[in-house]
């Protein structure tokens, strides 16, 4: 049976089993991956995977199941299971499936890996690291090509088909010289096709250079309240946390969101504009179909500091009356600012350039504390020295309210496009 026909087969089976509304999603992925461990090529891994998700709504009750087999017997068993799950669940008037939308086909990226080119790109990266950054230890590098074909269909007649291919590079690395070892750092980026050398992407060369500089890191002494200059790599974590506590469906409909009842109000610095743009041409790992079965659209979350949208699905929208968001999150893009990075550093009297945050998950209030990893102490407009054993604490909401500047420069990781952000009021403490 063709995958497209399988969708109708599943919907018919759900209907026959008693589902008043049904939804199915089939994703098939081929992955080809080359690994480096402890600085040496170690493994080539090729995997095929499939995932068939079935959802049934019956008597206002909902159940879902995901299996990775698509033979008739497995589907029949899954249909019985999902009806049982629905029967056992709590009824809720707000469960629904997306309305009819015109059938569409979406396509992004390559559909097959260039295996020899992948090996030569990775080999070149390994050689360049050895030559230009001799103290770098590549703990674990994974360079993969992923091709996924998705079919989505529901009993309202919606049928979408999305294919996407992308290359992913991820690396955990640190520096080591004699008895000195630095903190590890992480690189993760996605591209639709292999064009530029690995080292020229996503600020990688800067991260490697800064890791080596950390061989001379010093513990910071004392405690002060000062500026925090956040790199795009670190900002990615802060944005994802902000989304969890402020924009996510659970936080909104339970009323625990720090942005509850703040729609169209000023919640952040007027310098800040955040989009969730899964369809942007510049985002390599976007998506065209949302998990609740709608065609995805680019969405602005914060415009010049004003809250424009939460990230709620059809269910969250039905539950709260808040407008459903056209994006399901991710693919975050922050608009460039008007200052160059060097100019931003020059304006810092006393502060920290933070490359990675390692801390306890910030609470729902936005309070956080943790270690400033891969970070540098700044004083009188100059980067003074790399720091170790330095902690920061503050409040995430305040960070975005107290933005002093946003850089013109941005880093595109393929899942986000983010600038450097300068904020203040952070407690920085050392030994």
């Amino acid at each position, binding site marked *: 049976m063709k995958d497209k026909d399988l969708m109708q087969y599943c919907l018919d089976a759900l209907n026959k089993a008693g589902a008043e509304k049904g939804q199915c999603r089939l994703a098939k992925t081929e992955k080809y991956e080359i690994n480096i461990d402890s600085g040496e090529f170690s493994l080539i891994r090729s995997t095929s995977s499939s995932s068939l998700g079935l959802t049934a709504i019956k008597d206002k009750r909902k159940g879902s199941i995901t299996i990775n087999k698509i033979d008739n017997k497995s589907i029949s068993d899954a249909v019985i299971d999902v009806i049982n799950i629905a029967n056992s669940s709590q009824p809720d008037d707000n469960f629904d499936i997306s309305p009819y939308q015109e059938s569409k086909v979406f396509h992004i990226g390559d559909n097959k890996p260039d295996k020899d080119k992948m090996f030569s790109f990775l080999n070149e990266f390994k050689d360049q690291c050895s030559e230009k950054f001799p103290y770098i230890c590549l703990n674990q590098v994974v360079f993969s090509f992923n091709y996924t074909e998705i079919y989505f269909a529901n009993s309202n007649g919606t049928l979408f088909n999305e294919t996407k291919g992308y290359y992913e590079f991820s690396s955990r690395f640190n520096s080591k010289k004699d008895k000195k070892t630095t903190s590890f750092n992480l690189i993760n980026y996605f591209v639709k096709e292999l064009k530029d050398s690995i080292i020229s992407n996503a600020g990688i060369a800067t991260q490697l250079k800064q890791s080596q500089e950390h061989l001379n890191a010093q513990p910071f002494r004392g405690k002060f309240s000062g500026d925090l200059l956040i790199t795009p790599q670190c900002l990615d974590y802060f944005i994802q946390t902000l989304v969890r506590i402020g924009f996510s469906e659970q936080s909104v409909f339970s009323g625990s969101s720090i942005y509850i009842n703040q729609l169209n109000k000023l919640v952040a610095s007027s310098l800040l504009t955040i989009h969730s743009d899964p369809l942007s041409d510049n985002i390599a790992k976007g998506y065209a179909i949302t998990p609740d079965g709608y065609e995805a659209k680019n969405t602005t979350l914060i415009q010049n500091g004003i809250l424009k949208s939460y990230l709620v699905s059809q269910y969250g929208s039905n539950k709260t009356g808040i407008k459903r968001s056209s994006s399901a999150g991710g693919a975050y893009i922050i608009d460039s600012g008007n200052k160059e990075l060097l100019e931003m550093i020059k304006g810092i009297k006393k502060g920290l350039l933070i490359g990675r945050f390692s801390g306890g998950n910030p609470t729902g209030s936005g309070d956080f504390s943790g270690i400033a990893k891969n970070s540098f102490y700044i004083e009188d407009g100059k980067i003074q020295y790399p720091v170790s054993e330095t902690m920061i*604490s503050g409040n995430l909401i305040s960070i975005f309210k107290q933005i002093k500047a946003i850089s013109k420069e941005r880093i595109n990781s393929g899942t986000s496009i983010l600038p450097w952000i300068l904020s203040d009021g952070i407690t920085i403490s050392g030994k």
Partner: protein
Amino acid sequence: MIKQDLNAFKNLFSGYTELRLQENRELLLTFVNGNNVLNKKSVTAGVSSRVYKNGSWGFSSNPVISKASIKDVIKDANDNACFLDSKINKNKKPFNNKIIVCNNDFSAKPNRVSQNEINEYIKEIDNYVAKKYPSLVKRSITLSCSDIEKNLITSAGSICYSMTPNTLLVIHLTTIKDGKPVELFEYWGGLGQFEDVLHNPEQHYSDIDNIYNELMQKAEGEYAEAGLNTCILDSRLAGVLAHEAVGHTTEADFVMSGSVAGQMMSKQAASPLITLVDFANTAFGETCTVPIYADDEGTPAEDVVIIENGILKNYMHNKESAQYFDVHPKGNARASQFSDEPLIRMRNTAILPGKSKLEDMIESVEDGYYLTRRVNGQADSTGEFMFGVNMGYHIKNGKIGKAIKDLTISGMAFELLKTVDMVSDELTWNSTPCGKKQMISVSMGGPAIRCKVNLGGR
């Protein structure tokens, strides 16, 4: 499907080869404020093979389990290994393999509870919280049940079947104080299917009352003083020291990449009061939460004594790192899904109990903190670790004082362990997923300890 004889495929092996069938089954059920927002099952099964050629590995997997797909993955894994070997030619020696034949099935008894009974159990707990604590802004109850079934055969001769279930119930409460949410959670569970782990909703009520009371104390809490402080780490969170602070730095792949533990073998790495063990499957006469009898390379699992009376004794290995360090592996190579290759992972890692009493330890602190619950944690190649603490109290003149707000603690693992001067006589285990390329279940345990640690307060 998973439990079948794989001997017929051995004739397809060329060189060192692993063949594994695996099925991961999961049930996730979540109620938020009484709404059943998640009610989902998933089943992920398939076959994978890994082949070793002169120092290069090839791996392949397929979700279809059939004679044809098994032949295909063995061939593809071999092709991948040959391709890499042709490019880099490491020319390494074959492994010196220990083998094991084992069958470890922790399935529940035949009369399983129904999906309906499971939902009713969770609803009853939700009703209890809703009625008794109506002022909470959010109550979230999540049940996660997972079964991992594996069938492995290796060219060396190991044949290993296991079925390892795990059940976890998490209750998360949120209140609002001065317009800001304050949260606290507790979890129960461990090895076994639902009916072997959770018996009666009422068994949780006194714990729920305790979490609520602690949440109210935290809502009125104060910020801890940032900087180095004398702390008592309760036994509920000391296990994370074993896992994050020391465990990761002593995984041999981290050591080979420059971990600080690489320079400490046979040296004083901690206070003589500290002995730290990664248990394979049984500790103090009881089966551990993550019992491993053979790992996913078919190596018989043994305990690894990492630190003994303060001296660093062993790293944790897979076959390849053990060959590099000229020791024998003890079963730390574990894979998460059928499509994952085995990596060096911990199993059940614990600091062993000492002789002090917790009450005496608290009384001994003039000005410091008693930290009782924790959230996430992270290790580093330098030995610097952190973990989030979501409940704790100020100690003043040996008495427990006001609760404190959430914070992160950090330190250099081996320096911190040298400051340990009291270790309690109790031991608490807890389990958690650990991420290192793949998410995998581990458990960690420990006694309460008194030490100096850096607090990320205000």
